[in-house]
């Protein structure tokens, strides 16, 4: 069996709550096969991990406060629009941009789909990150608003992340997370969507 994601070990109290309390929110969405990860065994039953957002059972932190402000939570699915764009990008041939760009890497498509799935539980459909094909055959996911931006670029097996907070003097932040660590990646989208003061630290 795969090891549970690292963040579960850091949230033992949350895990205990999940095991003991019924989920009073909507049930977790149908989890597509690419994110089905056995993460815990309770009384002999394997529980599959839903996105981190949907595992919460009671308001307990900045995420929940932010969700209350938003008044809405997504269902953790990738929108049809995003799926259509990923499908189109996966079929691009070399030189798709007329400037000798390679085809978009299949690893980038897979990583983007996984990331969008997890981010989708936080954002409204119209706020889903934009998927941007890059001239080096990679993909970027980004969100922009007048007061801040988040740009997340797939580079090989890594997401390279940049946040910009605009004010009298713009502040720049950066980070890197492995492309399979969506729990870490989503924290940076939280930073954007919830207008968090502090840039997440790893």
């Amino acid at each position: 069996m795969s090891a549970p994601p690292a963040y579960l070990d850091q949230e033992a109290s949350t895990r205990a709550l999940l095991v003991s309390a019924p989920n009073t929110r909507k049930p977790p969405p149908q989890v597509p096969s690419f994110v089905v990860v056995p993460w815990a065994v309770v009384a002999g039953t394997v529980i599959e991990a839903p996105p981190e957002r949907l595992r919460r059972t009671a308001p307990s932190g900045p995420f929940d406060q932010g969700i209350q402000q938003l008044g809405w939570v997504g269902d953790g699915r990738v929108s049809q629009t995003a799926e259509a764009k990923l499908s189109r990008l996966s079929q691009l041939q070399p030189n798709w941009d007329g400037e000798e760009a390679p085809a978009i890497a299949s690893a980038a498509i897979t990583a983007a789909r996984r990331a969008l799935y997890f981010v989708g539980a936080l954002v409204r459909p119209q706020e889903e990150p934009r998927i941007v094909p890059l001239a080096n055959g990679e993909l970027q996911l980004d969100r922009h608003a007048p007061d801040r931006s988040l740009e997340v670029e797939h580079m090989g097996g890594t997401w390279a992340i940049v946040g910009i907070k605009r004010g009298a003097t713009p502040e720049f932040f950066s980070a890197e997370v492995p492309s399979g660590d969506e729990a870490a990646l989503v924290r940076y989208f939280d930073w954007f969507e919830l207008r968090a003061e502090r840039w997440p630290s790893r």
Partner: protein
Amino acid sequence: MAFAVEEIPDADDLYRSISGGLSADDRWSFEIGRPHSGAFVPDPDGVSMDWARYRAPRARLKSTTLAVVAITAGRCRSFGARVVHAPVQEGEPYGPNQAHALVQNPAGLPRSDQKLLRARIAEEARIVVPPGWQDETDTARVA
């Protein structure tokens, strides 16, 4: 005669032609009126720019050009980038281009810092030829 390689002064502008996405918003964020950092993804030898000393920003406009932005060589250097003049000689691919310059990552720069460098350039670049320039040209022609 071959173009000589020169030192680009800090105060001189470098122009970047923005093009190449499947749609305009693949390269430009219209919410905030600037290019994505993804518009500055380097080729293996760096991000291609044109040194203002040798080429006017509208000189290389093509129908596929979305916009042209500018930033000084000194500003790029202040972000930690190397800026080098790399003229393309007659007979070389995409040549001749005496204005050609490269903005390069320092060797060994972590990926997140490479991304940060591109984002800083995108954030501070000035718009020289805005998206929709083709419409302006059409209007001028009609007038």
